[in-house]
């Protein structure tokens, strides 16, 4: 009679302890984002004052900072650029990393394990080493000063990662179906398209998400290769174009940052475990 109650009490105590201990971490992680959000929604007279509690509104919240972005800056163009770049990068990544991942996982290519690792290792060659020679490549192709330069270079980040990810994914697709299809007269290509592709939709979707989120994490390439104000992706346009001289318009800056940052963060959030699985080599499912 007493035992369930004490067990329940123990559970409650454990939860209270965990919540208490986790609170500082959550505050640490979330506070900057809260601060950005409230800054974006404040009127300027409310923002630049030091005599009042800064974490809440003292004048009515405003959406002015958001509308300003679309009426007075290239913000709309940056969002379009970012989306178009992301679509191109995703297409290029799928068309290259998809087949490569499949070949490495399934077609028993000699030394495929080592090949896969070598491709993956190029993910770790940092942009800071590559951006100067790539700036020459970009200039050579006449792509400087347009976002096409980023369509060209972002796949160098996404292809290695997604090849590795998809290689792992294709290994989990049951082999028998594919062989059965081949016995039934499909060629290798036929088996790939008719049998493997349909069951690989989740893997392909994951690769698309990473093509998007990983290229959003870039700052250096966008900064170095794209100078004209209306050609930049959001992640570069906001920090470089919205700051005029030493004057910071913090309200609209934070509005611009969050409007893009939060959707990406939330999307990435759902796929984070796959990312970690990818880099640690498929453990911890």
């Amino acid at each position: 009679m007493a035992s369930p109650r004490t067990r329940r009490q123990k559970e409650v105590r454990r939860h209270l302890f965990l919540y208490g201990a986790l609170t500082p971490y959550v505050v640490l992680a979330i506070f900057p984002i809260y601060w950005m959000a409230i800054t974006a929604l404040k009127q300027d007279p409310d923002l630049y004052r030091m005599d009042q509690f800064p974490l809440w509104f003292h004048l009515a919240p405003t959406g002015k900072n958001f509308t300003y972005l679309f009426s007075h800056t290239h913000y709309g163009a940056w969002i379009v650029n970012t989306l178009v770049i992301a679509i191109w990068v995703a297409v290029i990544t799928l068309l290259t990393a998809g087949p490569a991942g499949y070949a490495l996982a399934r077609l028993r290519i000699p030394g495929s394990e080592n090949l896969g690792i070598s491709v993956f290792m190029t993910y770790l060659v940092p942009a800071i080493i590559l951006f100067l020679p790539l700036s020459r490549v970009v200039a050579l192709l006449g792509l400087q000063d347009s976002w096409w330069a980023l369509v060209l270079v972002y796949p160098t980040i996404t292809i290695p990662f997604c090849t590795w990810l998809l290689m792992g994914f294709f290994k989990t697709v049951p082999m028998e179906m594919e062989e059965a299809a081949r016995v039934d007269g499909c060629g290798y290509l036929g088996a790939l398209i008719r049998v493997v592709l349909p069951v690989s939709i989740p893997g392909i979707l994951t690769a698309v998400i990473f093509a998007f989120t990983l290229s959003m994490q870039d700052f250096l390439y966008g900064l170095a290769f794209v100078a004209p104000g209306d050609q930049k992706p959001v992640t570069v346009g906001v920090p470089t174009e919205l700051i005029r001289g030493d004057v910071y318009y913090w309200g609209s800056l934070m509005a611009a940052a969050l409007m893009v940052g939060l959707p990406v963060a939330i999307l990435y959030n759902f796929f984070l475990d796959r990312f970690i699985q990818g880099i640690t080599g498929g453990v911890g499912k």
Partner: protein
Amino acid sequence: MTLSTSSGGPDAASARAAAVSITVRTRPRRWFRSQAARRLGFGYLLLAPAVLYVLLLVGVPFLFSIYLAMSDATVGDTNASFIGLENFRAAFESDVFYIALRNSVLFTVVAAIFKGLLGTTLAFLLLRPFWGRKVIRGLVVIPFTLPISISVLGWKWMYDSQFSVINWFLSQIGIIGRYGSADWPIWLGQPLLALSACIAVNVWRNFPFSAIVLLAGFTSVPTEILDAARVDGTSFVQRFRHVVVPMIAPILLIGLLFDTVFTLSDLGVVYLLTQGGPANATKTLPVLAYQVGIQAGALGRGAAIALFLFPLLLPLMILLLRNLKRREY
């Protein structure tokens, strides 16, 4: 598996040689029509686009950067001449280079210690199921998933010289005086504070990564093994030290290496917060390479400075390679 397939190459070649020699008389199915050949041909065809892309836009530029580093190339001028190790010598002779090298190493090491501490404790707290665990985990990883240039802007505002919300807190609890008093910290304006401020942003952004990697490691340890160890009468500490740690060590190492590579080569945080200032106090190798290579237009000098990261990164990459190879997928 790897061994047997890799020895398939020469075997296949000799098989082809044999097949060719017979072809003349008996005309069996040619090798290139065989099942294996079709499979391999198809395989290499599928592999080619990705490998070519990476070779052309990572491999070739990497070699090209070594050439650039040994030339006097500039942004405007396309005729560069070979000047040997001159750029490296120039780097070694400049004080800024040493400051940047020291800052880079200091930044990476100090940040890694804090990320390790925060990440480990957080992973332990999130290890066992509790009500609301998924939500808390989702909230805590947001710093890592937010695009880097976006979150650095938020921090720049928090470090504002006058309206810093951090200073407001410190002032409220009485650690510092009011605005204008001598102990009012200018986060991005004082050398030591500026470096700490940059490190703090890196720690904030990446401690969730440490935690999640550790969690992935912990959950990969089969409970049967832990139960078996428990039945054998081991203590928690013993189990942790002799069962858990060895089993998650490879994952830990991979996480650490990834984090180190990205921290060491990151430009965004420092560039957006301080541009390397005040007075080079936060100048790291990536910032220096960017400023010399793009802003000052000295491609060769910039490439040489960026390449200095490579010897720092290479041992880490080799370690990682060996780790990835050792684990069975």
